[in-house]
């Protein structure tokens, strides 16, 4: 199998999705000739033309709102919001409309669209380019939220998202765009939305995460291994709907759960996962669930970001605490 990095896998998924369904459109800022600022849409306009791969005006309400309209009108728009920090300027369409249209119209109008958005930090980007806004979207009914951590999952989940009859917000960990490499099957395939991935089998503690932080957890698991601790690593991949069965099964086995993520900790999606575990597996817990997130302050400019976003050491420290509980 060919080896691709994550952005190449995204790019291949988009090529194949556009090939297999003429209704699929790609729109956003700089997605055309420039191929996207991360090259995720590279070659699409050359191949599918400027009618199907569209550089829009610089307007996020317009990008998301018109995508909703296109989806209602029978198309399969895949829009790109260039950075996580710019999602809020189109937030109204996400919170008030994207996930509601099907229910409001009793199923007559649906919104089969994908909103792609880079996610997370640690690439020394300017301010507002390293955010992790998943909690805002996950709290909003009617939307599915995906955040892969491997090239193979990125491709399979993106193809599944484009084929999905409902809106999917697809977060792409920008740190992994080039850093994450792996074998990716050439032909189109789906990775099921709503299923977590057991990234590492273990028995003493379950490290739960998504996106770039899944790799941080794997690194921490190796460190724990040296300390004689067997850590299981769960890569959620889909944030809503959550794969609760996989989470509970693992925690019932290990008795200890740690959730690592990049967003400010309070009110994060990790809080939901932590709450669900304690609410539903209380008697299996040998120690309190532990969350390791970014500090509850604005992300500093990049020179300090490595002290803001949890690294393997911080995950390790927290794991040690609950192991010693």
């Amino acid at each position, binding site marked *: 199998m060919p080896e691709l990095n994550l952005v190449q896998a995204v790019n291949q998924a988009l090529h194949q999705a556009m090939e297999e369904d003429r209704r699929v459109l790609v729109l956003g800022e700089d997605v055309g000739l420039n191929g996207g600022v991360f090259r995720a849409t590279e070659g699409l306009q050359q191949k599918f033309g400027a009618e199907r791969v569209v550089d829009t005006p610089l307007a996020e309400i*317009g990008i998301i709102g018109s995508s909703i*309209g296109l989806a209602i009108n029978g198309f399969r728009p895949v829009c790109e919001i260039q950075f996580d920090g710019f999602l809020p300027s189109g937030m109204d369409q996400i919170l*008030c409309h994207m996930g509601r249209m*099907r229910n409001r119209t009793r199923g007559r109008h649906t919104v089969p669209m994908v909103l792609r958005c880079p996610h997370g930090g640690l690439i020394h980007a300017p301010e507002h380019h390293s955010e992790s806004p998943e909690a805002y979207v996950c709290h909003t009914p009617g939307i599915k939220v995906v955040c892969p951590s491997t090239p193979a999952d990125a491709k399979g989940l993106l193809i599944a998202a484009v084929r*999905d*009859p409902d809106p999917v917000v697809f977060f792409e960990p920008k740190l992994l765009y080039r850093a994450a490499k792996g074998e990716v099957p050439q032909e189109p395939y789906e990775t099921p939305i709503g299923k977590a991935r057991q990234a590492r089998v273990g028995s003493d503690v379950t490290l739960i995460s998504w996106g770039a932080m899944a790799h941080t957890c794997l690194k921490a698991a190796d460190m724990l291994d040296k300390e004689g601790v067997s850590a299981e690593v769960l890569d959620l991949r889909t944030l809503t*709907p959550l794969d609760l069965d996989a989470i509970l099964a693992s925690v019932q086995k290990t008795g200890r759960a740690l959730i690592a993520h990049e967003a400010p900790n309070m009110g994060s999606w990790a809080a939901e996962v932590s709450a669900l575990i304690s609410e539903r597996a209380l008697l299996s817990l040998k120690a309190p669930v532990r969350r390791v997130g970014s500090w509850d302050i604005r992300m500093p400019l990049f020179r300090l970001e490595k002290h803001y976003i949890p690294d393997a050491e911080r995950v390790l420290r927290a794991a040690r605490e609950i192991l010693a509980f």
Partner: protein
Amino acid sequence: MPITSADRSRTERIEILSPEGVRDFSIPVDLPADQLLSLYRKMVEIRLFDERSVKLQRQGRLGTYPMILGQEASQIVPASCLKPKDWLVPTYRGQGAYYARGMRLRYSLLYWAGDDRGVKFPDENNDLIFAIPVGSHLTQAAGLAWGEKLKGQGGVAMAYLGDGTSSKGDFHEALTFCAAMKLPAVYIVENNHWAISVPREKQSAGKTLAQKAWGYGAFGVQVDGNDVFAIYKAVSEAVTRAREGHGPSVVECETYRLSHHTTADDAGRYRGSAEVEAWRGKDPIARLKIYLERENLWDADKEARLQKDAAAALEMEIQAYEAFPPPNPLDMFSENYAAAPWHLIEERAELQKILETKTGEENLPVLPPAEGRFP
């Protein structure tokens, strides 16, 4: 020349049928008598519905209701310029627009009674549910128009908005998209001079709202919004421009909200009656009636029959509305996703258990007094 004119613009205002019912024939409007009469009938019928809805609300038989009194022309005429497969996206003050498209009034009532089953448009139409957050439908309409352009069959998308809503950034981004991509969209600005208690002047220092169009390279025109002929001319031309690939238009219909913002509002708190009275004299229905009579297209008998038939038809709709069985609370769990995820299956089951313990209290809800509750 050092100081040159980079671009110039002029925003026209069209008036054809005067408040006194005098038509200016120097401006050709291709509106055959039968069509004109059907517009008149719909305007009369929807006014009757409007009056009746307010009564129903006062009687606690309907929820908060947004009146269209005085805006019958700007409501009925634009939507009537569309084909069923064109897209219509009205506002919450849109009963007239939906009615012009053939929506049954029982559903409008059901909706304003807080029942989701009221979202029911004729199957052959492309009607979209309006958005309560004002302006948030405008970029969606741009997307609908975009889709029509891609389909290439001459379809058009029309969205309504109010004078206040033209201040929202959504308007800017929608028009920017439509003009930059030459999308077949028509935006009807119903300038009824008020955004709840905020007068038109406070929304924009621009002399007209139509002139905003120029900034986007779109076409803009202002019309007397109580003048069926002026509206019909401007909107049908805008629709044709859109169909033929010449891009979007903004048609500002200058009209007036004769009633409160909604049944929950008290306009007496913020505006004087003199202004209201002045606008009563410009009533869109009255002036058209005078014209039709002068042209021997209408008379007292016809009027009496119309009033009688309309009242009877409305009664039937009200009965049909009130005859709806109570909604099943479990229905709220349907149509959230194509396939319900585990947590909704779980929650639905929980609600079911709860409902089993409850006893039939599912009549029309007792509605709260509206006073200042919400706009």
